[in-house]
């Protein structure tokens, strides 16, 4: 079976981010999107620890421990950047000022419920960070994840079995098999990887998917 590579997935997400957008990229797979933002678009990256106008990683040796992203990796600040405290940073999310966020997920339901913070395993140490604020705050919530778990179960589900992060918040799902839109009438396939049919995608997903 054909699959989109991680870079192809990231490039596909980047294609859907418009010029002038304020965007937050979550930890993990979504950080790859930054490498694929079209050069002819001015897109401002937000990191919830307090920076708008985040730039790429610094050159080796130029790291600054006071200039990091939400994943605590060293970053740079572009001309036009601003720093702010945490209450302002989350006002940008919760207040509906961010145009888009891209998040990883354990599961997404057909109604757009998101589970991405906790497996619910009894021995797991829970950690939530900004996931819940981002999921319901950004105007568009894009999820980027592998379509199936390692054991072949669909991560797109009729109802989340993992603890949810936020309800009915996801706009689009970008996986290694397809791009899906969450609509009031259920999931709709926007793109499917070459060689995979819509009925086969729906069968693998275990949920109904329209065209």
């Amino acid at each position, binding site marked *: 079976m054909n699959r989109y590579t991680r870079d192809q997935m990231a490039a596909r997400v980047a294609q859907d981010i418009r010029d002038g957008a304020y965007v937050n990229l979550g930890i993990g797979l979504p950080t790859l999107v930054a490498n694929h933002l079209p050069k002819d678009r001015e897109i401002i990256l937000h*990191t*919830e*620890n*307090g*920076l708008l106008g985040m730039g790429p990683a610094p050159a080796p040796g*130029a*790291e*600054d*421990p*006071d*200039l*990091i992203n939400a994943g*605590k990796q060293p970053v740079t*600040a572009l001309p036009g950047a601003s*720093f*702010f*405290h*945490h*209450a302002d*940073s*989350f006002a940008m*999310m*919760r207040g509906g000022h961010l145009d888009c966020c891209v998040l990883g997920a354990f599961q997404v339901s057909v109604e757009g419920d998101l589970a991405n913070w*906790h497996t619910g395993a009894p*021995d797991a*140490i*829970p*950690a*939530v*960070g*900004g*996931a*819940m*604020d981002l999921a*319901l*705050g950004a105007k568009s919530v894009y999820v980027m994840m592998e379509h199936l778990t390692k054991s072949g179960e669909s991560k797109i589900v009729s109802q989340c079995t993992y*603890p*949810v*992060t*936020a*309800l009915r918040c996801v706009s689009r799902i970008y996986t290694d098999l397809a791009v899906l839109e969450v609509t009031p009438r259920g999931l709709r396939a926007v793109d499917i990887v070459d060689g995979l049919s819509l009925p086969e995608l729906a069968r693998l997903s275990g949920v109904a998917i329209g065209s």
Partner: protein
Amino acid sequence: MIDKTVATVAEAIADIHDGATVMIGGFGTAGMPSELIDALIAQGARELTIVNNNAGNGDVGLALLLEAKRVRKIICSFPRQTDSWHFDALYRKGEIELELVPQGNLAERIRAAGAGIGAFYTPTGYGTLLAEGKETREIDGRQYVLEHPIRADFALVKALAGDRWGNLVYRKTARNFGPIMASAARCTIAQVQRIVPLGALDPEAVVTPGIFVHRVVEVVVEAANAGTAPAPGTAT
């Protein structure tokens, strides 16, 4: 004359008592007032409730306070990290209480305490495990959860520069929780890279006005890049 400057970190934290609630600034180690925490470990206060975004990193600052078993409870958003081994060990042994709060709710609860807000409705967390048992309300067709302020006896924050009135400027993303924690504690103690004369900080650029700060102590940290840039809003 107002002079909030204190000569040593030991003097700055001397009266933190057993059982105190202490906010500690920082996101990971950016903005963490590690020297104040080291002094607190040496001072010996125990049974503390700590408010921080994380639960310690590696073997510095907050992680060492946890390792020394001085913390009864931690209120934070993201305890589990690759380098949170001291917290992880205590948590698995049941030796520390965890109140997990979504990061934006953590920030807003701290801000609310500083701003005198009784409680507030937020959409974050609605329908999740972290809102279980909390009052909810529909407002204009959207669901909200009632959240209460987090107040502290002490706040320990790190800033780039401060003056004797307690005005502070920060450095880059090390600002994070500093300004809101400063407003939410009965006694706010700031460690600064340098104390500057009154008037040296540009009033247009002061981030935390001195009214929120009670003690300022200079801690010169010789780290690569840290604090070598001119202070924003510093006239000298």
